[in-house]
């Protein structure tokens, strides 16, 4: 096995591990406002997130920046809360099209924070060669994220169908609106709890 494939598997396993709930929940709130037909936008947002955390990881591994672990661990759930709160403003698909053009930018910036979370664990793994292992790890992360995204889209479709069956049309908000509201609220509550627990102050 080459360094590239070994680290690709490491990144892949890391994302698909259920212990990685903070990462998975962030993907969930990033993706929850999208529908099947918006898959390109969702993939682009997730990829921007990967690019963001690849940048911080690279900077930390090469020793260019030193990152305060406690602050990073606190900021990670904060990014989840902010994304979930932003979702609550979503009324109908496409109602905030102009604002959502900036979503990949925010995903990339928040990715910088999440990447810093990895960096403290990874920077001692890359001993002499950095480029290939780092690339492999990030490709593994991206592939794992796309699998999570696919699973999330399938879950969203089931949720919409379920809500549609349970609710009478016209009486309540649309299944889309309820899905975005419900998932974003629950995830925001979890993440707020984590932020509180990890608060360095």
């Amino acid at each position: 096995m080459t360094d590239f494939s070994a680290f690709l598997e490491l990144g892949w396993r890391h994302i698909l591990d259920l212990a990685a709930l903070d990462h998975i929940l962030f993907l969930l709130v990033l993706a929850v406002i999208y529908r099947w037909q918006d898959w390109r936008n969702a993939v682009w947002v997730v990829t921007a997130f990967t690019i963001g955390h690849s940048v911080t990881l690279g900077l930390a591994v090469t020793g260019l920046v030193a990152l305060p672990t406690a602050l990073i661990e606190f900021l990670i759930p904060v990014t989840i809360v902010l994304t979930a709160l932003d979702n609550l403003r979503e009324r109908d698909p496409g109602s905030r099209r102009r604002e959502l053009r900036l979503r990949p930018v925010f995903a990339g910036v928040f990715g910088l924070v999440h990447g810093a979370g990895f960096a403290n664990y990874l920077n001692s793994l890359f001993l002499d060669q950095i480029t290939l292992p780092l690339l492999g790890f990030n490709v593994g992360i991206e592939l794992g994220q796309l699998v999570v995204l696919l699973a999330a889209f399938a879950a969203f479709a089931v949720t919409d169908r379920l809500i549609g069956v349970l609710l009478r049309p016209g009486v309540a908000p649309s299944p889309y609106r309820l899905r975005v509201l419900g998932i974003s609220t629950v995830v925001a509550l979890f993440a707020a709890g984590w932020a509180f627990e990890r608060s360095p102050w």
Partner: protein
Amino acid sequence: MRAVILFAFAALLIIAPAAAAHPLHTSLTQVSYDAGTREVKMAIRVFADDFGEALLGEGRALPRAGEGFPAGAVMQYLAAKLSLTTGEGQELPVRWIGTRRKGAVIWLFIRAPAPEGLEGLRIRNRILFEHFDDQVNLVQVFRGGHRATLLFTHNDVWKPLG
């Protein structure tokens, strides 16, 4: 409908595991051959807090060398978790060389006699598997100017070195 939503909400709260950061549980072992002494050299890099917790109990990091470093206990642990065998299945005895602390990580150095070189040897690395469900152990083998990487997860047993 309200009951369904409340039930779903409660279920989500119950099934969500306790808040935890997103750690990456890994160890790195570098394996090479010392033709002068005809021994396999192994340098094992672990996080001092993870390893200390597995060895000494919750919340205890592995101390530095000279500060009550438990070399005997570390060696006993490594002998149980990191094994080298010949192709015929004969286990190679390992001996303790020393340790070096660098920030949050600690390097453990051991050696094992291997008169025939790395050819035909097999390795098993189960370090910290009993402690972390997501533990992944990387083994880098330096041989003939090349480097190969082996990856050990909970499902892996023996892998050839040469």
